[in-house]
């Protein structure tokens, strides 16, 4: 743990978390986990160990059977579904494994999607989107559609979408899964650099152990869904 993160208040707090898919299905158990503001944390583990499930629990997409999950000052277990959705939009930046860009929107609209689906209009948001696009080398592609972009460009659009709202926490689920090593390095640098610029904590699921050196801490899952 770095000095900076130790000095900060935890922005993600998990206590005695339990979650399962049905009675006989996969179970995830986390006794305790904390991420401090601005901290960069990697989550690793074998396939099927619950990394994505943990991210979905932190995002409030899934709700735990028991335990406490608090993110950016909100106890997700005590919140309604509508409150959790609102919280996701306002406080979290999400990068999905499959990116999940909307084909019928252009790059600019995809970056600004959180404002199109519920966030109140922010007059500075369009300028922020353009600025992010410039920093990530997408400036000339703002009117293109996702189908016209390379995988690396699409990846960068997803990162910009996660950062445009200036979230407190960025949750990224293997955003470099399908990329070659050099593009992977660029995307991760970009994500961490931009998150650092706005002071956002980053929790990123990855298989790539070569990337761990770029994170301050690593959470490791075993195959049974137990967090170490």
């Amino acid at each position, binding site marked *: 743990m770095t000095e900076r993160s130790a000095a900060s208040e935890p922005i993600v707090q998990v206590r005695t978390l339990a979650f399962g898919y049905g009675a006989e299905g996969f179970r995830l158990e986390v006794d305790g986990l904390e991420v401090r503001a601005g901290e960069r944390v990697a989550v690793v583990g074998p396939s099927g160990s619950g990394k994505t499930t943990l991210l979905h629990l932190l995002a409030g997409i899934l709700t735990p059977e028991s335990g406490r999950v608090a993110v950016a000052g909100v106890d997700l277990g005590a919140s309604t579904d509508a409150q959790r*959705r609102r919280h996701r*939009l306002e406080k979290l930046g999400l990068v999905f494994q499959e990116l*999940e860009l*909307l084909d*019928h*929107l252009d790059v600019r609209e995809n970056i600004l*999607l959180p404002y199109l*689906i*519920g966030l109140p209009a922010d007059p500075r948001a369009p300028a922020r989107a353009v600025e992010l696009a410039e920093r990530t080398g997408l400036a000339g592609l703002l009117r293109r559609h996702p189908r016209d972009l390379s995988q690396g460009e699409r990846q960068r659009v997803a990162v910009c979408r996660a950062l445009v709202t200036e979230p407190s926490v960025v949750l990224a689920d293997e955003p470099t899964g399908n990329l070659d090593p050099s593009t992977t390095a660029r995307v991760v640098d970009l994500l961490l650099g931009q998150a650092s610029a706005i002071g956002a904590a980053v929790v990123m699921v990855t298989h790539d152990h070569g990337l761990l050196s770029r994170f301050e801490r690593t959470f490791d899952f075993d195959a049974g869904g137990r967090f170490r």
Partner: protein
Amino acid sequence: MRAWLLARRSIAHARVRSAVLVLAVALTALLPFAVEGLLGSVSGSLTARADATPLLLGAPGSRFDLVLHALYFRGQVDAPLTMRVVGDVRASGLAAPIPIHSRATARGWPVVGTTPDYFRFRGLDLAEGDLPFLLGECCVGAEVAATLGLRVGDKLLTDRRSVYAIDDGYPLRMRVAGVLAPRSSADDRAVFVSLPTAWVVDGIGHGHAPAAEQPEENVLATGGSKGTVLDRGIVEFQEVTDANRGEFHFHGDADELPVTAILALPDDAKARTLLRGRYRVDPDARLLVPREVVDEILGFVLRLKTFFDANVLLVGVATLLLLGLIIALQIQARSREIETLQKLGASRSAVARVFAVEFGVTLALGLALALGLAMIGVLFAREYLPWL
């Protein structure tokens, strides 16, 4: 949520899918819209003309035929009245009679014999020329003039009822004295003449050279109580000119000359009631209120329309079910997009709103297209299908 923007982008992105959906909705709604529009238009013009005609006299027979004949110049009546009835109405002091005699056609358009009162009563204006005051003159409706390319001074030949009827009158070559301004009514599609001209066209009156100038073989008898009797085979004039106008004449009692209908314009409600009472018991003439007859005709049409409406309803329900299925399949096909929106934080209602706007816009576009096509159809029908 900018549901409108997202819906618009989705519609524009899937152009073919959206176009097919819009077209499906449009085609489903087109027929009922068009039928409704046509019926509205037809019933509107029918009732307007019927409302403008207070009372109608005709010989006993079909009241539908009489109204369609006298008001819209369509079809024939079973039997005519006589000019005596016109005189009776005038003499009663209860109403002003406007006789109509229409049996012949000129190049397919009905030839309507009437008096100048008719033009005043219908408020018909002349686009050019004069009313047909003289024998052998006609004044054509705007559509007749446009279709046949007629101007003042042109000639118009009446039709023979049958090429095989050798005892039929000769066709009359009429001079176009005037062209009426368009009124979007049956008057646009008629050839108006004076009553004497209508009788000549009908073969009741005729013109020929004086008996003294006839060849001997055409003279059957002279000096009897009937004066000179000529053979039917004499050559009759086929055109009225200034030189021969005086040679045209009618045989028999002027009171017995036929009229196929009489428009009766009562002075007031009391006169109207008295007139209706008088002709309620007359075996030779019947008095109708055109609006009542038109309502009866429309009622019959509307009863028929209920069957059509039921059919449309069934087709509409089937189409709605199919559209519902298509929408359900689309939502299913776009479940990943819905999931993305929800994972990012969109509320369920917000996502539903995007799809509702999208399908609503598709439906609205389809209905607007159907409405537009139906309006064009109605305008086209009114322009090019005058029989409607």
